[in-house]
């Protein structure tokens, strides 16, 4: 019985799939020198970002079966941790004087003052630690609950985090958000790796993070931890009776997932250079993170990659009304006709609606995700051939 083992949760990759993986990774590394356009790199960065988020969620949601719909909290922790420290490191003398004044009454201001002395890039670490602590707190509360109750609790706790960040304005600048005009150069020792003059460095950072999350997922899948996570997903009472500590393993899965998600948040923050609670801490984002995994296929290494490959272009095409525009510009549809009018006026505004409908269709007809759907198609073909 042959199978695409690299695409499933079984052991051992087939040599063919491994070669394909290596070739694709090499092509991805060469991509910026092959394709000049900054827009294509932008799309790739969005793909990477989605993949990192999906892979991270997959560890707790896909492998351990705990559907956290509050991952924006960890994403926000990474994004805010990075931005706060980076912003503080760029304070000028006036701002520092003002802070010193404020610091007498406000702990948060004194915290910012001490952040000023940190290396700007340590914010990423700060974000990871914040996400880790947050995951342990959230885990200790939410894992008392099971199934749908856990989902609801995870949403609620993430909302608490959002509202807290909104109100800790001394530290987070509240609803205004934090904007950074220039990123400090990324250095190791005294060597400058990049000064972010274009978007190529973001491409490589994203690619490396994608490879990191895939590697971590692979490690999990091929370890005792992965077996225990999956056992908990399949039947937690049975897992419990077989000597698996539910509390420890659920929290371990959440912590791992949270730290990786915070990396996605940090990556987003330095790429967009702006964070505010509505973009990095919203329920929308939490749902988006879950969708990437579910659409692609949960509990598999490459499911989230497929999910990102489906969702990012889909949202991009719909947002830019690419289909409508090209139909009109190719002359197939007259822009003055009723249909043309519908395409330009109505459809372009309804892109979120269409996106939603397509997502529902995928979930209805491909319950195991796109990857699972194609896998069962291949299996069926094989069966017919045999």
């Amino acid at each position, binding site marked *: 019985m042959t199978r695409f083992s690299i695409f499933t949760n079984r052991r051992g990759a087939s040599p063919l799939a491994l070669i394909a993986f290596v070739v694709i990774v090499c092509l991805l590394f060469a991509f910026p020198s092959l394709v000049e356009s900054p827009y294509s790199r932008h799309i790739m960065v969005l793909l990477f970002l989605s993949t990192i988020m999906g892979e991270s969620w997959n560890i707790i949601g896909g492998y351990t079966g705990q559907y956290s719909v509050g991952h924006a909290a960890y994403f926000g922790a990474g994004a805010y941790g990075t931005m706060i420290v980076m912003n503080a490191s760029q304070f000028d003398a006036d701002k520092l004087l003002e802070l010193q004044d404020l610091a007498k009454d406000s702990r948060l201001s004194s915290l910012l003052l001490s952040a000023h002395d940190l290396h700007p890039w340590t914010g990423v670490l700060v974000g990871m630690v914040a996400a880790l602590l947050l995951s342990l707190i959230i885990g200790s509360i939410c894992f008392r609950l099971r199934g749908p109750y856990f989902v609801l609790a995870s949403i609620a706790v993430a909302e608490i985090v959002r509202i807290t960040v909104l109100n800790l304005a001394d530290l987070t600048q509240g609803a205004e958000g934090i904007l950074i005009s220039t990123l400090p150069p990324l250095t190791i020792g005294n060597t400058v790796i990049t000064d972010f003059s274009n978007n190529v460095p973001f491409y490589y950072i994203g690619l490396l993070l994608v490879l990191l999350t895939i590697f971590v997922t692979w490690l999990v899948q*091929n370890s005792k931890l992965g*077996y225990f996570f999956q056992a908990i997903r*399949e*039947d937690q*009472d049975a897992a419990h009776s077989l*000597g698996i500590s539910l509390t420890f393993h659920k929290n371990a899965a959440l912590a791992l997932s949270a730290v990786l998600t915070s990396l996605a948040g940090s990556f987003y923050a330095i790429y967009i250079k702006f964070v505010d609670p509505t973009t990095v801490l919203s329920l929308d984002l939490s749902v988006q993170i879950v969708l990437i995994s579910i659409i692609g296929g949960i509990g598999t290494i490459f499911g989230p990659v497929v999910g990102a490959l489906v969702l990012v272009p889909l949202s991009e095409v719909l947002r830019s009304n690419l289909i409508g525009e090209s139909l009109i510009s190719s002359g197939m549809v007259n822009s003055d006709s009723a249909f043309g009018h519908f395409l330009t006026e109505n459809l372009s505004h309804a892109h979120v609606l269409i996106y939603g409908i397509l997502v529902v269709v995928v979930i209805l007809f491909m319950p195991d995700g796109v990857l699972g759907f194609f896998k069962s198609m291949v299996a069926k073909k094989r069966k017919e051939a045999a």
Partner: protein
Amino acid sequence: MAILEIKHVSKFFGGLAANSDVSFQLEQGMIMGLIGPNGAGKTTLFNCITGYYPPSRGEIVFDGRRMNGLQPNKVCKLGMVRTWQKVRPLAKMSVVDNVMVGALCHTNSLKKAREMAMEQIRVVRLEHRTDFNAGGLPIGERKKLEVARVLATQPKLLLLDEVMGGLNPAESEEVIQLILDIRRLGITQMVIEHDMKAIMRISDRIVVLNSGEKLAEGAPGEIVKNPEVVAAYLGSE
């Protein structure tokens, strides 16, 4: 030597006594049958013993150690493990992966766990199903898988909750042989079973529960002649 002592165990759900003042002992290496009409409290007793519920009163001593309040995973690590009346396969994992989860209870190496798992799969004769998804197995094989999985945790005491339920006579016979094989491995067993013929054949000793209380205890031959047991099962004037 008694491997398990149940001392005056009671379990209340609100005002309902699912078990009240149950006491008995299991000797090392024996097979203890636990029988009783529906609702007699057999499964509740299993849940109390394996840590799913703390007993309301009384004490459970396993291998010289008080077990009250220990979580099921700790109970398993100490060498006592149960199967489920309604089988609980890890459906999307293969047969060998299911058994490996049990084996990983005492080892960190996947390779070693796999060897241990294969050994237990041979014991229950499921070699031909090694790479199948557990969710796709017929009921008879699911029950065997359940047994292989608990055997892989290297238990001293096995609690089997209706392993023959829903099986045809040929499959039941296989499970009976399996239980006898397990006894030969030196593992003590406590078996809940409704099939009277089977339980009389395999048990060294039988405890009868009725309405949460221990009604009788003795060798199979004594139990069938016990008028109270007959009355509990068939009803009496």
